[in-house]
């Protein structure tokens, strides 16, 4: 009976496309919007992801997320280094500083100060120059997006294109000269501010003087160390907070989830997509069943069981669901692909596909259920009614 079910479904092309369009829309909204949401959330911890080498991040216990810097005394670095199980520990400065551009305007930058000796925490992808060039006098490395856009030299004519910052150009950080010695590729951050890498000691010089300047201590554990035990040792010994890379990411995105309206806003959009998709697909599928009720009645009169008709409707629902889901996910993926070089945040992990797949499956089950109930309750004697 499967081919009969499929022919019944595809026979009315308008209705068939209507159902698929409804499900495609629902699938698209339930994939694309969460993908933007996940992309935004991933940006909240993108700096942590980019710093891949250390196992543990040590910070002030009051820190709530990556940009919530609560500086520590530099002596904390030496205390951490002294803890058993620590292979090495390096300082990291992170702060928002104003850069004065060549045209006299100011731009807030995310300044990262790396350990002078090891340069641990530096960008993984250098597009121009080398990380070691940071050791040159007044050297800084800027990220490509910042160099092209916010730190770029303004156009000489109004409305013209700005000139990207390049190696050898200079800018001022807190009245101190900084020379661009490299251009790096970094993952966009939530605020999308330009990222400026320099050495720890130079970053301290750029930053307004404070008693405490150390933002984070980056720790590498000795081989074979139990990470949980080492974290506990660091916390007990120093009174500071310590997280693995994943733990710190979780702390950061949990903060954004709890303290910003982003999840609610996206949640509403996704819920609306689900409701509208259910309404369109549900109504069209239900109408399709209603219009085919006489045909189902004929099959029932001829001896087709409720189970057979149920399987036919389920097959129809699975088919339109599968096509709608595939199209929706495909369009969302294409959208993400086309937007890959833009500022738009977009990330589509496999869990998201499971999420939207479950959503579409739920719609199909609900839609099929309503239709199935109608067909099960159908009196085959309807076939003799004109």
């Amino acid at each position: 009976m499967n081919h009969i079910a499929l022919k019944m479904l595809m026979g009315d092309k308008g209705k068939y496309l209507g159902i698929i369009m409804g499900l495609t829309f629902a699938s698209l909204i339930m994939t694309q919007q969460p993908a933007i949401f996940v992309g935004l959330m991933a940006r909240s911890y993108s700096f942590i992801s980019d710093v891949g080498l250390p196992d543990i991040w040590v910070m002030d216990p009051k820190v709530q997320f990556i940009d919530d810097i609560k500086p520590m005394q530099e002596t904390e670095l030496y205390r951490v280094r002294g803890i058993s199980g620590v292979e090495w520990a390096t300082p990291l400065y992170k702060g928002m500083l104003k850069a004065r551009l060549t045209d006299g305007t100011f731009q807030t930058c995310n300044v990262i100060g790396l350990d002078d000796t090891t340069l641990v925490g530096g960008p993984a992808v250098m597009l121009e120059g080398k990380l070691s060039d940071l050791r040159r006098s007044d050297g800084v490395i800027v990220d490509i997006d910042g160099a092209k856009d916010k730190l770029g030299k303004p156009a000489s004519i109004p409305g013209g294109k700005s000139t990207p910052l390049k190696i050898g150009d200079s800018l001022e950080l807190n009245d101190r000269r900084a020379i661009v010695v490299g251009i790096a590729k970094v993952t966009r951050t939530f605020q999308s501010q330009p990222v400026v890498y320099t050495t720890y000691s130079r970053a301290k010089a750029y930053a307004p003087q404070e008693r405490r300047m150390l933002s984070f201590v980056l720790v590498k554990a000795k081989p074979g160390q139990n990470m949980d035990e080492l974290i506990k040792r660091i916390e007990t010994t120093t009174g500071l907070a310590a997280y693995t890379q994943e733990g710190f990411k979780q702390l950061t995105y949990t903060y954004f989830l709890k303290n910003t309206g982003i999840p609610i806003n996206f949640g509403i959009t996704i819920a609306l997509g689900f409701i509208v998709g259910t309404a369109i697909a549900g109504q069209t599928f239900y109408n399709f069943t209603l219009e085919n009720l006489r045909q189902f009645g004929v099959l029932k009169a001829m001896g087709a069981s409720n189970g057979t008709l149920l399987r036919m409707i389920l097959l129809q629902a699975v088919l339109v669901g599968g096509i709608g889901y595939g199209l929706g996910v495909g369009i969302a993926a294409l959208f993400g692909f086309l937007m890959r070089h833009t500022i738009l945040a977009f990330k589509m992990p496999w869990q998201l596909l499971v999420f939207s797949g479950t959503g579409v499956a739920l719609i199909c089950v609900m839609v099929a259920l309503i239709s199935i109930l109608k067909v099960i309750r159908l009196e085959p004697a309807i076939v003799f009614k004109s």
Partner: protein
Amino acid sequence: MTVKPIAIRCQNITKIYDTGDQQVTALNGVNMDILMGELMMLVGPSGCGKTTLISIIAGILDQTSGDCKLFGENLLTLHSKDKLQFRAENIGFVFQAYNLLPSLNAAENVSVPLIINGVKRAVAERKAADMLEKVGLGARTKSLPAELSGGQQQRVAIARALIHSPRLIVCDEPTSALDHESGHNIMHLMKEVALDQQRVLVIVTHDARIFNFADRIAEMDDGHIVKVVNSAAELK
């Protein structure tokens, strides 16, 4: 003269429809025997209970009281699964509005009863093509219902009713949507192809033009069988 065995026996059949605020009696004590190899027509004014009676005979509607035995089987007492199987194997339907599945071609439409009975699709469609040949539509096996005339669609419906060799064929106004010539052709076809000694045809009709094809005619009125006659002339 040999006595034909009874194929359908209706005894004191009553059907009351409960419409919520009132009850409508559609059949009120119907008694009737239909013999094997017989073409029986049920005639009478609209609302007299003809369609209700064939629905009960075909096992797609349960009577409120009374007994209806089809080839010795009381469908009311059968388990729903057995009833479905009995219907699938023993009954063929021809409807006024043909009720062909619009997205299936002629051969696929005709093959449906065989597929319901578990026959493989390829075999069913091959048999369907043979059956369409018998009803004169051998060249239109791939045509969709919308591409066929009313008479041709009814021929497809007849082929569908016959394909699984049922013992009972119930027809609801099979000629009322057709012109005189097509109606006569359909009735000739029914007599030639559908009717044999192992089969019963019960036809509900208003169409006096086809009364002459009946072996017997049962006239109904107000939920009763008023009289059963052997020819149309006796109805007057």
